[in-house]
């Protein structure tokens, strides 16, 4: 039986409840919510004057009402040490979501730790140290002293290469400007740690080097551009599921024509129609289905290309559009580099950058060649080109938004492919203009503020591979779980378990010894090939099972936290509840660790070095914000000013504070100048060169099934919490793998059966989900599942500049077992909306 909460009634928010600003901390979109809280012994009533909505709640409320909340939006939590009722519900006045809640964000309240309702008991409450053969809770001072003592043995002034660090660089969640600054100041300011990596990839690098090198920052538009555009060219993204309310609240109005009035008003001198939609994805997604429903099938073009051939498609479109002369010549002349090569190809640049002519020569691809490589009809490529760029009535330039995400970021030939997409945007003058933008859709929100990282170099060190090869002595991990989200994960876990176990055994053997003796024992084990692992997280993660010290962090709402969303909209989420137990903001953990390192180094006679760890006398996260963001961005944005801007916040960069308001920037590059030394954008001269990452071509030839992979509506940036959420785990107790029913029949696999996916890199498991729209021999597996990591079967070959290539994975499939008990009640029907 499907999971049901058996809740028929909820406490009513009283009229005098506390109301605070909340930006959903899960995905990039950053929907606005409000947190209402009130004492646990009070309640509102149904009479209009006794509830927060001023509405008679003894009556049925209409669709889209503001005066309703689901059981998932309710909890009882601690606030200033006291139990309070908490409701977190969508904000109808937030321009991002206009009152919509996603299946993820609308469960924020339910996903808070509560000792009353029993939710999220997996949250860490106390520092823990490996002691007496398991993890034992202890004090912050005891845990941080051990971390500092061991770390100090392997760092020296001017050489911190034995310290490996994995740290988030994002906003939302437990990231944000406060926490990236706290960790950044420690590892890039006090130290210069070059052996570091980011939460979702095995190196400290950009996921979009090429667009930045071309002078085009990846978040350059505003969400309203979907309501102003003539076409949406979506690549490698499934926005209905992974940027849900951006899709529902901005893309759908654009493609349904609901925004025609706005178009005519803001862009009066041209013809307007509802936006047409082109989706580039090997798989038919629910997004394709929803676009067809919203826009009409005749206005949707799904280019279901061969996996990994996006670069060939973009170069073909670029060639064709340029050949037709559907280009913005004035823009190209004024705003792009004119003189051949601006940046030659080298180890840090996987292709040359420069003028339009340079790129046209390098990227030249005929319709016939493009169609053949991509497995598409020439006519469809032409249709896409026309929808993107064929001038409107009177020769007016068409407007097109080019959103993209992991399909090409974690796909074949990252640098050249993203560059080739930006090429089309530049060619057609669609950057910095209303209804334009070549943009990342994004995963987490952003919230990056760190000292310069140029010392790391480019290509950046491949950290996970170095760890496998025995590199590193001490590993600090901040909210990263390599075990679920790295490539070559089968091997990584095997080696990491072995190396960390060496240290655990040494700690077990030193039971009851003094701190100095314990540290000596740990150091000896490390020198014998071991690895000392420190895990900072909000839960006991999978890689945390290998940790020797575990430090509990809080996340958004349990601290004040600032981030920006996919249109650079910055908001302050106010602290509306206490963190669990002794847990602290990451910035404060970093500050305390710095102070312990200063003390330990001083005691070790390294006074000069110790001084580098000063400057962390922060009382709270606001001090970290002022030390980092405020001080480094023109001293304009403060908590008070941002709080006053509410859930609509301000779009970065923030340029001034006038008349009591922060003044932001609606679109980047609106003045036609770009982010290069000479302010001219560059074109990318990257020719198609097949599957680029090592080992992919051979794997494709050897194994039968494409193991395409990605996220789902219900399993996304909140999975760390949702592995302990009954509603979510009931739906997908195991990661699904979408398979064509004929493939399933061939393998003797039924709906819900467990299958093993195997190749030369390793093996993993998934639950078969029959999907008639799946192409034969092309599967799609849920990524990063706790109960079956897709990364186990991704080989260690990366794209140039150490970008993982998850999407191009091939393997064989075999049945493990019939559907387990937890699976038998599930719906295995099509996820597509089909009206009666």
């Amino acid at each position, binding site marked *: 039986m*499907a999971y049901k909460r058996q809740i028929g*009634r909820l406490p009513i928010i009283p009229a005098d409840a506390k109301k605070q600003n909340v930006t959903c901390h899960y995905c990039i979109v950053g929907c606005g919510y409000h947190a209402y809280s009130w004492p646990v012994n009070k309640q509102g009533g149904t009479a209009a004057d006794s509830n927060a909505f001023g509405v008679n709640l003894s*009556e049925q409320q209409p669709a889209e009402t503001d005066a309703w909340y689901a059981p998932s939006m309710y909890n009882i939590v601690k606030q200033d040490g006291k139990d309070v009722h908490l409701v977190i519900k969508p904000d109808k006045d937030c321009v991002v979501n206009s009152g919509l809640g996603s299946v993820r964000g609308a469960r924020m309240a339910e996903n808070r730790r509560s000792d009353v309702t029993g939710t999220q008991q997996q949250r860490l409450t106390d520092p823990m140290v490996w002691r007496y053969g398991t993890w034992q809770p202890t004090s912050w001072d005891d845990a941080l002293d051990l971390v500092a003592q061991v770390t100090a043995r392997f760092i020296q002034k001017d050489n911190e290469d034995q310290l490996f660090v994995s740290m988030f660089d994002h906003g939302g969640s437990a990231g944000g400007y406060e926490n990236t600054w706290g960790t950044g100041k420690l590892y890039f300011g006090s130290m210069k740690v070059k052996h570091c990596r980011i939460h979702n990839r095995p190196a400290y690098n950009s996921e979009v080097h090429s667009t930045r090198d071309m002078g085009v920052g990846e978040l350059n538009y505003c969400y309203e551009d979907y309501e102003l555009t003539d076409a949406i060219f979506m690549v490698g993204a499934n926005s209905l599921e992974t940027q849900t309310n951006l899709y529902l609240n901005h893309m759908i109005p654009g493609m349904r024509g609901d925004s025609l009035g706005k178009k005519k008003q803001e862009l009066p001198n041209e013809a307007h129609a509802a936006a047409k939609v082109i989706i580039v994805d090997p798989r038919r997604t629910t997004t394709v289905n929803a676009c067809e429903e919203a826009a009409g099938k005749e206005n949707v073009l799904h280019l279901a290309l061969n996996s990994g051939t996006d670069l060939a498609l973009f170069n073909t479109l670029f060639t064709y559009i340029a050949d037709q002369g559907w280009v913005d010549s004035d823009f190209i002349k004024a705003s792009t580099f004119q003189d051949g090569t601006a940046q030659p190809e080298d180890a840090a640049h996987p292709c040359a950058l420069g003028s339009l002519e340079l790129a046209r020569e390098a990227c030249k691809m005929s319709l016939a060649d493009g169609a053949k490589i991509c497995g598409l009809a020439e006519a469809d490529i032409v249709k896409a080109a026309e929808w993107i760029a064929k001038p409107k009535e009177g020769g007016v330039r068409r407007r097109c938004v080019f959103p993209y995400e992991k399909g090409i970021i974690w796909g074949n030939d990252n640098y050249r492919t993203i560059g080739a997409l930006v090429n089309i945007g530049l060619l057609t003058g669609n950057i910095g203009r209303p209804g334009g933008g070549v943009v990342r859709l994004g995963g987490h929100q952003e919230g990056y503020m760190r000292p310069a990282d140029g010392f790391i170099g480019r290509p950046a060190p491949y950290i996970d591979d170095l760890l496998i090869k025995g590199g590193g002595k001490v590993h600090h991990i901040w909210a990263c779980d390599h075990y679920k989200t790295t490539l070559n994960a089968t091997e990584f876990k095997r080696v990491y378990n072995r190396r960390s176990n060496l240290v655990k055994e040494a700690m077990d053997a030193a039971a009851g010894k003094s701190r100095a003796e314990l540290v000596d024992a740990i150091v000896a084990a490390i020198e014998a090939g071991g690895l000392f692992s420190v895990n900072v997280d909000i839960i006991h993660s999978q890689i945390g099972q290998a940790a020797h010290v575990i430090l509990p962090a809080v996340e958004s709402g349990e601290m004040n936290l600032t981030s920006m969303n996919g249109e650079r909209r910055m908001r302050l989420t106010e602290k509306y509840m206490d963190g669990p137990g002794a847990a602290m903001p990451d910035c404060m953990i970093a500050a305390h660790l710095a102070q312990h390192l200063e003390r330990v180094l001083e005691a070790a006679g390294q006074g000069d070095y110790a001084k580098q760890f000063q400057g962390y006398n922060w009382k709270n996260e606001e001090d970290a914000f002022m030390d980092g963001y405020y001080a480094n961005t023109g001293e304009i944005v403060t908590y008070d000013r941002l709080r006053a801007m509410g859930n609509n916040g301000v779009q970065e960069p923030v340029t001034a504070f006038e008349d009591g308001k922060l003044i932001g920037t609606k679109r980047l590059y609106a003045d036609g100048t770009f982010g290069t030394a000479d302010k001219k954008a560059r074109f990318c001269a990257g020719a198609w060169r097949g599957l680029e990452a090592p080992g992919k071509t051979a794997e494709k030839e050897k194994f039968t099934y494409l193991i395409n992979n990605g996220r789902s509506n219900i399993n996304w940036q909140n999975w760390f919490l949702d592995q302990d959420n009954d*509603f979510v785990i009931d739906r997908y107790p195991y990661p699904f793998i979408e398979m064509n029913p004929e493939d399933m029949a061939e393998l003797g696999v039924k709906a819900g059966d467990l299958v093993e996916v195997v190749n030369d890199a390793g093996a993993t498991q998934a639950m078969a989900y029959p999907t008639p729209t799946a192409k034969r021999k092309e599967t799609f597996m849920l990524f990063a599942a706790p109960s079956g990591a897709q990364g186990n079967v991704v080989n260690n070959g990366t794209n140039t500049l150490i970008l993982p290539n998850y999407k191009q994975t091939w393997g064989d499939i075999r049945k493990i077992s019939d559907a387990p008990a937890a699976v038998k*009640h*599930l719906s295995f*029907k099509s996820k597509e909306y*089909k*009206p009666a």
Partner: protein
Amino acid sequence: MKRCRNLVEVGRRQFLRGSSLAATGAVTAAVLPSSKAEAAGNAALLTYPSNRLANLSDLTLDQPMDVSYPDDEAPGVLIKLGKAVEGGVGPDGDVVGFSTVCPHKGFPLGFNAETKTLNCPGHYSVFDVEAGGQQTFGHATQNLPQYVLRVDDKGDIYAEGVDELLYGRLSNVLGGN
């Protein structure tokens, strides 16, 4: 079926306008409640009325029958599925009842007899009536509220409870104890 198609159209228009409706799409119950339980003061649990919604003989395979429960402002359907399912009643264990107000934003759901799902025209959510109303795909944070049904020896079908909070009300029984 006709009604459900109409509801789809209503939902489509509503989504375009971005305005609201829900229970106004309402639904005169095809069979009026024959009795309502007396409210029980100060009870620990919500007291649901026991309402007669239909007789087994009123149902046709795969044809959803419009009902409302626990009151006239809460539209729903009874469906005879032709195979025994969880929560199903009747001699074949195949009769189920569900709210037809989407628990995401309150749009009226339409029934697709081919897939045996209730589908939301507002934001494309899909609920499987053969799997206890599990949200096959969608944006609601709960599965579809299903009725607790009882069939008496005359074949009369009574609803006597709901297993999730209904959209648009903070008490499933309005003003109830």
